[in-house]
């Protein structure tokens, strides 16, 4: 009888240690989900206040060996990156964002979305994937930005063809 009681006590102790850990992981995921949705809302509104989500030591990694690729390691350089991206589009024509998928796990989140906009060289549509890492203060410490090159290249090809056509005429 005593052995059974001791076993039950041990089990209760283990459960009391394990349950809060599981609950805190669930809480962290839900906090990250809320923050990520707020971040996406700012992104889709092209709201300059989006920089308030960035930690001082933010790293933006753009997975692209071509134009606009690389590591941007400060709030200033990340701001500059987004300014350069925005400058390629006619923002007055409006930019359409569509959130397609969200994956949140602990302090990390990934979002997949489609962007339709008027690029300076023509109409533009592309898919993006962002992976975000959040810190304890609710700020983003790392953004990984993935997108297809092809829509940019298609616009550039058109421009090159038009230029060549202009030269031959």
């Amino acid at each position, binding site marked *: 009888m005593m052995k059974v009681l001791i076993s039950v006590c041990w089990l209760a102790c283990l459960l009391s240690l394990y349950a809060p850990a599981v609950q805190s992981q*669930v809480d962290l*995921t839900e906090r990250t989900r809320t923050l990520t949705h707020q971040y996406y809302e700012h992104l889709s509104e092209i709201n300059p206040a989006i920089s308030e989500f960035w930690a001082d030591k933010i790293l933006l990694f753009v*997975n*692209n*060996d*071509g*134009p*606009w*690729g690389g590591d941007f390691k400060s709030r200033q350089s990340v701001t500059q990156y987004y300014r350069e991206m925005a400058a390629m589009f006619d923002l007055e024509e409006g930019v359409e964002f569509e959130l397609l*998928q*969200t*994956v*949140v*796990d602990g302090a*990390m*989140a*990934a979002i*997949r979305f489609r962007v339709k906009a008027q690029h300076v060289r023509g109409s533009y549509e592309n*898919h993006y*994937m962002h*992976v975000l890492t959040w810190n304890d203060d609710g700020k983003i410490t790392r953004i*990984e930005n*993935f*997108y*297809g*090159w*092809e829509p*940019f*290249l298609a616009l*550039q*090809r058109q421009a*090159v063809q038009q230029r060549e056509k202009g030269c031959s005429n």
Partner: protein
Amino acid sequence: MIRKTHFLISTVLLTTVALAWTAAFSDDRKSHAELTAETRQLMERFLRLHESGDFSLKEVVKFYHKDLNATYYRPTGIFTFTSVQQYYEAYKPERLTNYDFDYAPWSEPLLVLVDGENAVVRYIGHARTKEGEYHNHYIHMYRVRGDKIVEYHAMTNPHSDAHYARNKQLLEDLGLYKGGQ
């Protein structure tokens, strides 16, 4: 006596209906935590296969739903597959051997995130190609139905000598290249 029989038959019938209903809708009633645990297990098995460095495409497609919807966003275009058969025909080893590389790939996972029936995997794919080493960064976002992958979206960043050189040349031709190498 008749009443008792009647009561028994009604009870058995009601129980049968309740059990059938429970079985039919049991998948729909899985909690988010249960779905996350199942998806995580599936992704772990899927990645173990890729990490092994010794697998065939036939083993990979076993993880895919027959109605697989897969989209690759590559520098050369956007490619969509609307069935597992179509995917297999495009990537079967004999085709790749002729077309692209000596098919001996292995993967190095960098990140796995799971949320209900959704998952994200970041990894580097390695292979020996006819034109040199191949080290390609990937991000895949998956949707799972039952115990199969039913949808995924993949973005790649060519990071091999051959692909890099080819894409660098393409970008230079277009006046777009800004890299340092």
